[in-house]
């Protein structure tokens, strides 16, 4: 195995593109190193991207925020701008791993790991976040929603790396929230999860919404029908019930050691309903 510190995104991309064997990107390493040590993954080349200029910074851009691919969970949690703009995104990212892991883990790593249960992914999708991809053919922007391809797989092509994730500007009276279900209270992996990002008018009526679910399908699901169920409402009980039903209808989970199909489906609806209420309150709505 070889280890390379990339000094630029181009260099990282080139090294990954040229490697004939199994090449992996190292940012926080909280998934990669665990898999390598467990013997589940044998790697020929590790490309460390943490030294690429700007990859560990958070910068304002067009009213939104650009978050470098190597920004750790705990750094996000201490950044007032991100916390104000996307509390749901931050609370999702802060659920990855333990306190120790938070010092290393990144949202982009969480995304590229390809797990349907990645905590930050539904929150980023609900936030309409966009990643910047550097590859052999130059750079491109891509919605977070389009990165996962299935369990353990992404749509990134050979030689492509994500260098940052962009949280776009949001109107006033917007709020977001993320909830996951785990059998314990921390240090666990989502059995089902839901993120809701919504905007209200001055009267407290929902004017825009995005609802995303995790761990209930091969990849994150953006549930348009769930958003439609609450747009134009003040999140009354009927709207919440319709939201939950739409979420349940969008679930295509598996039965496995972490939960049953019935449990995941039902819980996704419950979590979406509860997350919508939190997001609504954060947007300034009251009932």
């Amino acid at each position, binding site marked *: 195995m070889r280890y390379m510190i990339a000094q630029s995104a181009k260099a990282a991309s080139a090294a990954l593109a040229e490697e004939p064997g199994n090449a992996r990107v190292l940012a926080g390493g909280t998934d990669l190193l665990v898999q390598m040590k467990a013997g589940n993954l044998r790697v020929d080349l590790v490309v460390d991207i943490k030294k690429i200029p700007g990859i560990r910074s958070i910068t304002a851009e067009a009213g939104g925020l650009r978050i470098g691919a190597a920004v750790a969970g705990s750094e996000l949690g201490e950044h007032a701008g991100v916390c104000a703009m996307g509390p749901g995104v931050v609370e999702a990212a802060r659920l990855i791993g333990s306190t120790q892991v938070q010092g290393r883990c990144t949202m982009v790593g969480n995304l590229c790991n390809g797990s349907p249960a990645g905590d930050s992914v539904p929150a980023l999708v609900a936030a309409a976040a966009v990643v910047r991809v550097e590859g052999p053919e130059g750079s491109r922007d891509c919605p977070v929603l389009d990165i996962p391809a299935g369990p353990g797989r992404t749509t990134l092509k050979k030689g492509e790396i994500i260098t940052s994730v962009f949280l776009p500007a949001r109107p006033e009276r917007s709020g977001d929230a993320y909830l996951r*279900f785990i*059998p314990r209270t*921390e240090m666990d992996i989502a059995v089902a999860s839901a993120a809701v990002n919504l905007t209200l008018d001055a009267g407290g009526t929902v004017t825009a919404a995005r609802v995303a679910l995790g761990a209930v399908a091969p990849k994150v699901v953006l549930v348009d029908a769930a958003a439609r169920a609450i747009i134009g409402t003040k999140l009354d009980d009927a709207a919440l019930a319709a939201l939950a039903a739409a979420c349940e209808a969008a679930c295509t989970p598996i039965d*496995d*050691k972490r939960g049953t199909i019935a*449990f995941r489906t*039902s*819980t996704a609806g419950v979590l979406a309903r509860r997350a919508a209420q939190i997001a609504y309150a954060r947007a300034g709505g009251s009932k």
Partner: protein
Amino acid sequence: MALDEAKRNFRYVGSRPNRPDGVDKVTGRAQYGADATAPGMLTAVILRSPHAHARIKSIDTSAAEAIPGVRAVITGADFMRSDDDFLRDVQENCMARDVALYDGHAVAAVAATTPAIAKAALRAIVVDYEVLPHVTDVDAAMQPGAPVVLAGRALENVPAGMSENVTHSCEFGHGDLTAGFAKADLVIERSFKTAATHQGYIEPHACLASATADGKADLWCCTQGHFFVRTLCSAMLGMEASQLRVTASEIGGGFGGKTTVFIEPVALALSRKSGRPVKLVMTRDEVFRATGPTISSSMDIKIGMTKDGRITAGEATLRYSGGAFPNATVDMGAQAGFAAYDLEAVRTHGWNVLTNRPKEAAYRAPGAPQAIYAVESVVDELCQKLGLDPLTVRLKNAARKGTLSSYGPTFNEIGLVATLEAAKAHPHYTAPLGPNQGRGLSCGFWFNFGGNTCVSLNINTDGTVGVTEGNPDIGGSRASISLMAAEELGIPYENIRTIVADTNSLGYNDVTDGSRVTFAVGLATIKAARDAINKMKSRAAQVWGIDADAVEWVDGAAVPAGANAGKFPPLTLADIAANSPQTGGPIAGHHEVNVDGAGVSFGVHLVDVEVDPETGFTKILRYTIFQDAGKAVHPDYVEGQMQGGAVQGIGWALNEEYIYGKDGRLQNPGFLDYRIPVASDLPSIETVILEIPNPGHPYGVRGVGETPIVPPLAALANAVSRAAGVRMTELPMSPPRILAALKG
């Protein structure tokens, strides 16, 4: 040795000094199993079966042996085949011989100069398996047509026509069940299942073995009983006990799981073959797949009760499986199930069943939590249906001194009624509950054990004392033993250092199990101290020129007594020690004994939970433990045992389980999907220590380490069932299972 009636005012026993191993442990200096090193040491790794059940047709190790840096490769053929069933089972569990019996069963091992070479060599070993049908569920394994795990192991007490997986049965009880059930106003019959759980000790098994060309060997390992390790390993390797010295490291948790061997014989065989020291450390994956979890169970319970809460009869049928080799854990479950009750008619039947799972090892009160969970669940349901207070009903039926127990003996002084009364008087029992909340309670019981014990106590010339004992300290026992030595000798705790010596330094000491150490090693320490005191009194008498019988030991000093009282100033322990070269040489006390009279232990747990009706999530709101400790020598560590047992039981009740796929492979061999509780899952657990002296110990001590894992299963099940409004009969009560029950 009987209780000292006069001994009630303790000076050191009952205080809470720092434990002697504390600083090393919190600073990272303590030497655990994986910390031992030796010059020229090799690293060993083990190849494990990926199949639940497979015949090993051949193993080709030639390619592995050809890799530079590989110094030894062994398979099951490198061990002698014992005629003794018990020893052969332990050995074939360490390394399969002809058949791999479970996913993770060891089939070969490599020692090499680096970990990377050792791992590469494992990949170069070619095993030709013939995959066989498997069975992992206890009920399925009892069916006559089930795949047979091991043939020919059934004892005579198993009726003909049953599956060969049923290896033995047992029966306990007394009285007329039919007449008893006829007297009942309500009889409830329920079936229960519990999943296999792992002790979850944080330190994986680790050892360093060094065998030399002259036939001697040294072994350093993390274990609960290095004398037993010596017995097993020397027998497997054809060595005399004197040729193998075993030293126990500090231990990062055991809970019963480190009372046998898994890797130690393998490391010794590799060291003997390579001529080099060999270090072997398990990964967490290996710990889950190939060490000893507890049994899985399937149980039927039938209990009758009158309208006023008198239990008229109880019957239990227990089907336990401890994996691929025979064991007798079900006997302990069958004995413990109804132990808390004074019954006219009671009968328990136990069956042991083989499955393609790893060989069970002890786990805190082995066999008792499952049976008592089932019994206490039915008692709770009877109380619910008859509209009775569950604590009053337990008091009405409680076993007490003179009760003929459900397993045969008549109880002596026991603390069950006192713990129940303490629970009833505690504010927790009457605190209000909110919506979706429930309160559960359960009694718990464990036999406790004494056993073979050998202790030396050396009086140092500066007036300090060294205690040498042979039981690895898994719960603060060195502190407790020092406290008892201090009490007896009349010198400060700080002047005593207690160490755990190797197998060459003392006579045979039984394993640290059965909650025996504070009781039995404490008793032997008290006796050894009295032996040393007698010698010191003789030295004082010699100095004074009086008869030794005319000397008393008071507050750490010899004083002349009787007719000589006041004639000479007292000689302190330090005075006598300093002068010992002139009065006959070194002074030491010694005691060896096979201790009886451990004294059974009872506890009562009370828990409040809230169940989320939409997700089935259980939140533990409040937890209080009441337990009889006989005499709490070091109350911090008694409370620690009580809290720790409760936490492990909470994990068992709510989320922990061995999950097998259709292919018979373990699906959750890691702490991500084998869910032990994390700190944030738990409230602060309140403890109430009762002290009903055990007549079998000079200070009244009873073992406390095992009883506290017994009640949580039923306490949680009863609380959750009451909160959810539906009776839960299978563990773990994971959220999907609770939600499914709520939705009917």
